[in-house]
């Protein structure tokens, strides 16, 4: 149910923050997984 107190602008801002978090953490996770894969195939 939509909260009438939160304005449309706030809702959009919150949504964009969630998208940003997913992209940012997703990027970090991708880099970590690439490094982990490299560690498994290389003799470090």
């Amino acid at each position, binding site marked *: 149910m939509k909260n009438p107190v939160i304005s449309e602008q706030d809702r959009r801002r919150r949504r964009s*923050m969630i998208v*940003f978090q997913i992209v*940012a953490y997703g*990027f970090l996770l991708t880099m970590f997984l690439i490094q*982990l894969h490299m560690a498994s195939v290389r003799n*470090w």
Partner: protein
Amino acid sequence: MTTNTMAAGAGAYDTHQQRSRAAQWRADKWMMVGVFFMGTAVLGLIGLPFFLRGLSLQMRAQKAGFTVRPIMVTLIGYLVAVDSALNSLGWALDLIGNHTLLARVFLMAWGNMFDGGYFWHYNELWIGGASAPGEKAWVVALLPLMFSMRIAAAIAFLQMKRWGQQWLVVTCWFGVIAWAGYVTNMTIFADVRYAGVVFPVVGWWLYDIFYITPFLAIPYLHTVNREIFSD
């Protein structure tokens, strides 16, 4: 601030404000001592109890009804200050004090354990310090620009200044770029950074994941009521 306080007149209001400021300053003194020690990295554990004592004082003051800084502002402000101090100390050692005994112990240990960039051909560039590809450029770009801005912004943010909030937003986004670039650099030159180190990949990530404060603070900074910060 309660209605009773308002009804009691300007004198009571002034007293309330004065006592609130005193309570905040008392808590801040403990937290600043804690952050000072934590910012040195090596003495970090000494600082933690000081910081927690200050935090509990502030929470107690808030419960008692005093007008003190929001807890979230306190946590983000001090966290950013510690993050900037830790990075500044480590990279100032690498950039300026790379031949000192402290750098040779501190950075060599770091290089040996987690990041070969601080071990491999160390001090062999004309500028000294880390020789890993790209590393020095990050040090030069981030230390005098981003981290010094960030520590200034954190202090102003803790003082509830408008420019502190604005500059924390700016430097947090700068932090996102820095992290994205730095981690990509680590991945591209992973053979230099991780070959022969004691704890490759997982060790580095476990240690460095705590520096992701910009990612954590950005949603709050963009959604907080800006009116609580004064000009």
